[in-house]
């Protein structure tokens, strides 16, 4: 249990370190991967219940500190998004790559969109909603596709190296689903 929380802390640290250092060459049509969005979904996968929400709020605090804006907005939004995804997670567990990818897509979109909207509202600025939505969806799609590709490739690599272990995992997963319901 302790090891799992250590892993989540490391994951958040890595996400916060990597996001500002992303090379410009990774940008495609103005869209950039949103690594905290990936980290948010991973937090939900690795921790459960309130613990995952606390970790996500810590992630939000880190992003707040990096953003240079007033603190708190990212914490609120990330926690709200994580709470929403937890509802989604209870009906469809994040096991298959497609489910994880959809979770990343949704989480990133709402995070980016809500943060921009909140900042604009709090500063009493008018907002071009379609352009904000377009920008947020670009980042979200890019991040989700990246996650999907990484998961597919890593699964294929894992299957080619340890074919028997993959079979064991799928059985264990089915068993845990049966027992948890």
């Amino acid at each position: 249990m302790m090891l799992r929380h250590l892993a989540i802390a490391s994951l958040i640290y890595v996400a916060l370190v990597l996001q500002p250092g992303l090379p410009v060459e990774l940008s495609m049509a103005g869209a950039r991967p949103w690594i905290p969005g990936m980290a948010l979904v991973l937090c939900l996968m690795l921790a459960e219940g309130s613990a995952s929400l606390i970790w996500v709020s810590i992630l939000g605090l880190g992003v707040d500190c990096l953003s240079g804006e007033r603190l708190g907005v990212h914490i609120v939004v990330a926690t709200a998004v994580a709470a929403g995804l937890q509802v989604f997670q209870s009906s469809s567990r994040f096991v298959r790559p497609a489910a994880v990818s959809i979770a990343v897509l949704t989480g990133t979109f709402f995070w980016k969109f809500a943060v921009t909207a909140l900042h604009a509202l709090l500063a009493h600025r008018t907002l071009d909603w379609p352009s904000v939505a377009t920008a947020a969806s670009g980042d979200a799609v890019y991040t989700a596709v990246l996650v999907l590709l990484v998961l597919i490739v890593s699964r294929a690599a894992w299957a080619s190296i340890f074919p028997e272990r993959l079979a064991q995992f799928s059985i264990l997963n089915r068993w845990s689903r049966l027992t948890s319901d």
Partner: protein
Amino acid sequence: MTLQSALTACCLMLIGAGLYFIPDAVAESVRGTVTDILRPGYQLVHVSLHTLIRRESAVAGQDASVEIAELQAALVEEQERARALETQLAMLTERMGADQQVPARRSQPSRLITRSLVDVAVLGDTLADQWRAGKLLDLGAKNGLRENEQVMAPRKTQKQLLDQGEGAEISTEDAMLLGRCVIGKVEHVGRWTSTFQLVTDANYRGRAQLIREASNGSYVFEAHGILKGQGGPLCRLDGIPAESSVRVGDAVYTADRDGTQPIPLYYGKVIEARLETDDREWTVLVKPVDLPNPLTTVHVLRSAVNLERVVAK
């Protein structure tokens, strides 16, 4: 989602909302602490990315230089081929006129004088100096093992030597080639070594002729002249009368063609041609082929008596 999770989410969102209103000093302090915690990670990422980019750019640079070298080699090869085709076309055009007048003769007797290429190494300044100073071989005139004085005489302008001499049947005035291009000629021939003149040397003289591409795509031989070195990077082509035509871009080839050496060899390209109103001759400047630096190996086109013919008689 359980009630506990919902309550936790609400609490965390309230904390977040509260953080929005904290004083700037406290916010900066929190921000500074978090940034300090993340700093080692940033530095690690920064160093790793820079190392990776530097390595990639080094590899890309190597690839590019290899590609440039290959392209340059291919270009030189194509230029050689183009020159060969130029001369062949010009000769075919010339021969076509002759064949129409004279009935073809089909017997092919072996030639009395044969031409052949000899691979020759160019000795560097240090080796040439040592050779001239007798450090490499000095058995003296008594033993009959002494190099030709003209070859041994040190010259300020020409230090380099060819590593072949009489033994390789090299003669004075033999053309020195780089591929199919004439870059000079043998000046003095010793027993083991020879001296040479480059086409750019002030004393160089050689018969030359122009070859030009005609409007129909064929190549034709044009005026003859004397190619003279000037001691600089360019040569002059003298002796072309005013009534001849010279154009910038005309190719300059050797004119010493006879039955044994029917194919002209390339000297360079006309880069300037002037004819003033009172001039009786053209003033033509020729750019010879670029020499590699250092010049290490060349060919010498030697003429030798066909021993088979001589012995048979």
